[in-house]
């Protein structure tokens, strides 16, 4: 049995230690917001936070997450949307929406580190794939989220 702290709830799971965290979240715990896209950490659809850092859970063995605080898209979606999600709605970012949980998790971890990012910072840090091509709106939404968080220095 492995003990996991997911979205501030404790779970005990009986899986092989090398099972990727993604599949434990989706199939064992039932948290379906985190998506499977490539299985090789290339697309970012599976991004979650481990101790606040964005990780690609499809290539992250569950054993490595024991003793950490894991946060998924469900964990940041309470009664109130967080600034990144709000910006995503205001800019009408998602199309098919499949990559967007991972995008939002990658961006929220990024903005926690860099509250007033430049275009170059954004391009260097957000490498997730969106096949619908929502990138122009994602760029705008990241700037808007930064402003909503109050991090933008005029």
């Amino acid at each position, binding site marked *: 049995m492995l003990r996991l702290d997911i979205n501030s709830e404790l779970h005990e799971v009986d899986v092989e230690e090398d099972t990727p965290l993604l599949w434990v979240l989706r*199939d064992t715990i039932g948290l379906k*917001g985190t998506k499977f896209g490539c299985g090789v950490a290339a697309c970012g659809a599976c991004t979650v936070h481990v101790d606040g850092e964005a990780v690609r859970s499809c290539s992250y063995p569950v054993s490595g997450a024991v003793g950490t605080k894991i946060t998924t898209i469900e964990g940041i979606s309470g009664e109130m949307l967080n600034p990144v999600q709000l910006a*995503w709605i205001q800019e*009408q970012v998602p199309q098919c*929406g499949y990559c967007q949980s991972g995008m*939002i998790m990658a961006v929220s971890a990024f903005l926690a580190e860099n509250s007033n990012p430049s275009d170059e910072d954004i391009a260097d840090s957000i490498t997730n794939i*969106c*096949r619908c091509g*929502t990138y*122009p709106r994602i760029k705008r939404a990241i700037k808007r989220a930064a402003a909503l968080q109050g991090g933008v220095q005029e």
Partner: protein
Amino acid sequence: MTKLNLTRRKFIVGGALVGGGLAVGYGFLRDGDPANAALTATTMEGEVALNAWVKVDKDGLVTVAIPRSEMGQGVYTALAMLVAEEMDANFSELVVEQAPVADVYANIAVMKDALPFSDKHHEGEDTIGAWGMAKLGQFLGVQVTGGSSSVRDAWLPMRQAGATAKAMLVAAAARTWDVPPAEISVTNGVLSHGGSGMSGGFGDFAILAASETVSLDPVLKKSSEFTLIGTPQPRLDIPSKVDGTAEFGVDIELDGMVHAAVKLSPVLGGTLASHDASAVKDMPGVLKVVPFESGVAVIADSFWRAKTAVEALPATFNDGPAKEFSSGGILTLLEENLESEDSRIYAETGDARAAIDEAQSAVKAVYKVPFLAHACMEPMNCTAMVTDTGVEIWMPNQVPTLIKWFAEKIADVPAENVIVHTPLLGGGFGRRLEIDLVIMAVAIAKEMKNRPVKLLWTRENDIQHDIFRPAAVSRLEGTLGSDGRISAWANRIVSQSVSGSYTARLLPWATMDVPDNTTSEGAADIPYEFTSRLVDHVPVKLPIEVGFWRSVGHSYNAFFTESFMDEMAYAARADPVDFRLAHLENHPDFANVLKQLAKVSNWSTPLDQGRARGVALHESFSSIVGQVVEITVNGDKEITVDKVYCVIDCGAVVNPDTVKAQMESGIVFGLTAALYGEIEIEDGVVLNSNFPDYEMIRLANCPEIEVHLAPSGRLLGGVGEPGTPPIAAALANAIFAGTGERLRELPISRAGFIA
């Protein structure tokens, strides 16, 4: 999104529709089948279906049934807007749900112009086969999302559905209040009678309305009366897509569900020869090993365990005929067929062949494009539960009618015991028009009866066993007249036939050799005026499956024709925009898009050293799209795509923000293909396997995109695909302007360019 619950069906049948055959829309019902029966079967306690598209409950909640698949193109919102406009419902409180599978929801628009059943562009041949396909198309009544057709198809029936529903509610209120219906007005879901001051909500009259009989041919609003259509509305599906609650096919969770992963023949089209189930039967969670024609599945209690086991499972395969083919050799074969004497003519005016052969000088060029994969972000999946009497399917798909037929066939159960659910699609792009997943999933689930089996492909399965956009080669030849305009134009295209390949998958016993408009779409129907013109296509048959890929034939024909227009402009020493305008004297709508594009892109203003721009103009799916691409290119052939300007005339606009979003999306899709897209096949095996070797544009190299809407008053056009075709030509034309090097093959790496 409300999930259908067929066990709680409740039959309150709208009186207006019983026995009336078709309430709204087109005459596609069989005798004795009330139009709204399918939707009525989904109503809850206290809720009625006023027709096949609209349900209202006693609290006034309006539910619009959407018979198309939501794959990111905004169809849930756009079609709901059509209903709400005519119903005068409160759009901010309306909900949508996926419609069931029923004849009434057949997509007529797509039959008319996108599938092989149409003869729209085909000239010079009137075969029995073509006639038969047209008849078949009308008879089948297929519920399909594709061909950028959803709004065009729904424009009348779903507005009529809204108007009819409103009329029934008004009639019920008039009867209750004892006032003439004409004196009742409706605004934002509230009915009111000015004279008496009486008012009520839709919910107060919903149950009564269901038994009202109203005209089945309601008067619709004039476009000047629209208050919702044409205004930017937030998409109804977006909130669920930012908090993780949106349910895609891959997210389906059912009691007792098990998971399947597969190992498929490495050679395309190969079959399973042998496997050793005993090697994996004791691995954790493994429940069963199921061989099928093209591979072998492991069913386990989780996907990860199924995948781990199937990878460890020893299996051998019979290669099949694709073993003899590689992508390089295929391009050579296609090029050799440029000399074929067996072509089909799709457009012919005058004698272009003779004019070119007799000309002292003609411009000639050969262009090539590769096979491409769809690479939807949600990997292919299908969940199936087979019982002794029926089959139930949960599958992200674009064509539930066919999914239903093939589930019935493979499960071998009565048609009435087949249920198909279509959750949200994590991308479609034409890939989810295919039936391969449902055939595989039902074949596997038959071996694990009474339990839902979720078949999920890995990304490697998805890339290597996609049904590809075909490789294509085109030769273009043109002559210039003394007026500096093109006099003769000849365009020969060589490729596999997508419609032929698709039809053979659906009806393998049929051997049909019929015209396929998709092979020449965007080549045979270009607007430019030439003295003589010849466009023909040489179909080549290969043992590699090809399918519909966003914009289909337009995806390569626009690259061929709009690159060659630029070559002709250069030969004529003319500005590319002016040169095109000179060939559009009788096409003011095209000229209008091009002029607006030149204006918004500052076409006449020179760019700085090291930067260049290119233009392309193309009509597809009844929408005209012009694009200007600005690039930076250096001496090492490194390219940065800086900005794309896009102007679209799609006629009437339902949700302008969605039109813009679809242009952005189509541009990134087409640009991704131009910069990186290439499926490489060696001895029948696809060498690409995942995103690192089938690369995508990402945020860092995505250009700024500026979209302008330029509605001219033309009839409705599509928006899901028309953004894709022009971008590769515009890019190639920019590269020529910047470097003097003409790019005639995609992706750009073929000519040594790097992005």
